[in-house]
């Protein structure tokens, strides 16, 4: 019954995320024909735009010459990654307290369930939701690409979906852990998002080291460029998420209500 309760507490967040992410994937596919028309207009000569920004514009234009590259740049590297982190945090924040207030948790805490049981249901529901949120948009690509005359392999979709899922759990776990330390729904979310922004900023500035950033794993960059799965990165992410969930569970077991 606690799974059902967790679902009730998070269903609107989940449904909003599902709609947004899936629609984003759909729109990305459907916009491809227009992009194809506009791409030749982007000049590729080095002299046109200098510096980092110019380099990036040229890089994107280069990648988007292929359909697969286009999908990777638009969806996996950008939209799904950015929005996914936001939604993962929103799903994890608040922990067991939908309204963030400890008083409303008193009924739950007076029930004959242990704290690990209660938190476990919440985590299980959240992870299930994240999996759906990761694979549903990813599966849009193999299913919908024929509509614009392109193909996208199921294998690629599954790999990218897995990369999204595993890395999103890191932010979900972070938000959950913060919720056991800081009360409220919005404050843990804000802190987690700030952490994400800091990571992203470091990612941008580090340049060469960005291969190891969580966002590179999230977008499945290694797989996109070389076909090799980022096992190390996925394992590290999984371990980090597990570690944070354990810490959160430990905190929760000791909290006073």
């Amino acid at each position, binding site marked *: 019954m606690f799974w059902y309760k967790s679902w009730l507490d998070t269903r609107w967040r989940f449904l909003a995320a599902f709609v947004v992410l899936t629609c984003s994937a759909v729109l990305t596919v459907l916009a491809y024909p227009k992009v194809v028309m506009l791409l030749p207009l982007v000049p590729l000569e080095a002299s046109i735009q200098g510096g980092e920004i110019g380099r990036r514009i040229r890089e994107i234009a280069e990648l988007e010459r292929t359909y697969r590259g286009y999908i990777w740049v638009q969806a996996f590297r950008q939209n799904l990654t950015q929005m996914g982190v936001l939604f993962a945090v929103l799903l994890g924040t608040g922990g067991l307290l939908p309204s963030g207030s400890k008083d409303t948790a*008193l009924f739950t805490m007076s029930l004959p369930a242990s704290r690990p049981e209660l938190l476990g249901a919440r985590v299980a529901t959240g992870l299930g939701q994240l999996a759906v949120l990761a694979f549903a948009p990813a599966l849009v690509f193999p299913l919908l690409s024929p509509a614009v005359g392109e193909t996208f392999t199921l294998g690629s979709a599954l790999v990218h979906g897995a990369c999204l899922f595993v890395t999103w759990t890191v932010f979900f776990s972070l938000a959950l852990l913060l919720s056991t330390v800081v009360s409220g729904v919005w404050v843990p979310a804000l802190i987690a998002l700030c952490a994400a922004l800091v990571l992203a900023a470091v990612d941008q500035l580090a340049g060469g080291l960005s291969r190891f950033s969580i966002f590179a794993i999230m977008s499945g960059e290694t797989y996109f460029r070389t076909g090799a799965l980022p096992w190390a990165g996925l394992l590290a992410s999984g371990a980090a998420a597990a570690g944070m969930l354990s810490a959160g569970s430990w905190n929760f077991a000791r909290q006073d209500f």
Partner: protein
Amino acid sequence: MADPFVIETVDLRKRYDGVEALQGLNLQVPAGSIFGFLGRNGAGKTTTMKILLGMTRPTSGRARVFGLTPGSSGEGVDIRRRAAFVSEDKSLYDSMDVAAMVRFTASLFPRWRADLERQYLRAFELPPNASIKTLSRGMRTKLALLLALCRGADLLILDEPTSGLDPAVTEQVLQALVAHVADAPATVFFSSHQIADVDQIADHVAIIDRGRTAVSGALDDLRRDYRRIQLVFDDTAPEAVFTAPGVTHVRRSGRVLTLLSTAGAGQVVEQARALAPASIDVCPVSLKEIFLETVNAEE
């Protein structure tokens, strides 16, 4: 279960952020009693209840419910299987309706009484499809009480069950509690500011003041032992010391000397006669007065 006390605390202490919520609370709640727990706001009543149910860990001291330790994870779950709690704000799941709330709770208790559920849904006039968000305070209280009564609980822990309720709903609540205790060997432990309610249904009380037990015992014993004695003199009341045990609150005002005795009037009256007062009046003391005298006492 040979343990005569359903709830027992010994020197229970709790500190929150530098605030000493409980400073050595000693409590013994006999099985089968209706136990009233009185105290000013912030005296530590809610903290005590949360500790008993394993929601909060004490700083030191001992608390036992059904002989089990609430702080231990496994025993805490056992306690919450047999005890029901209704918080002061009667918090429930706003996102559910009445029927869903009942189903959810019923699914957690194998001894759920479907017959009581039907009976109380009817008696309390709770509409099954009403969203909990829309319920009035009285309705929420009755629903919370239903959820507590139908699960076959041996112990009900209620935080201000009748606060904010009109007299008719209050009577319904008190009647349901009385019926529950009469039916099964159940204990009710409730805090209240409505002293009249405590007077009406409790057989034991404890008054908590500044985190400690100030008064505790059977209500009938308190009614028998507390007496206010007033001596009127022809001239200014003398400065007298009363050595009888249980004499507190000696007040002098002009020709009148008033004192409170917690051990009956006999010895005090005997000593008082030696002062040759013009009149001696002995009056019983209401629970409200006992409460006020206790919590207003200077240390």
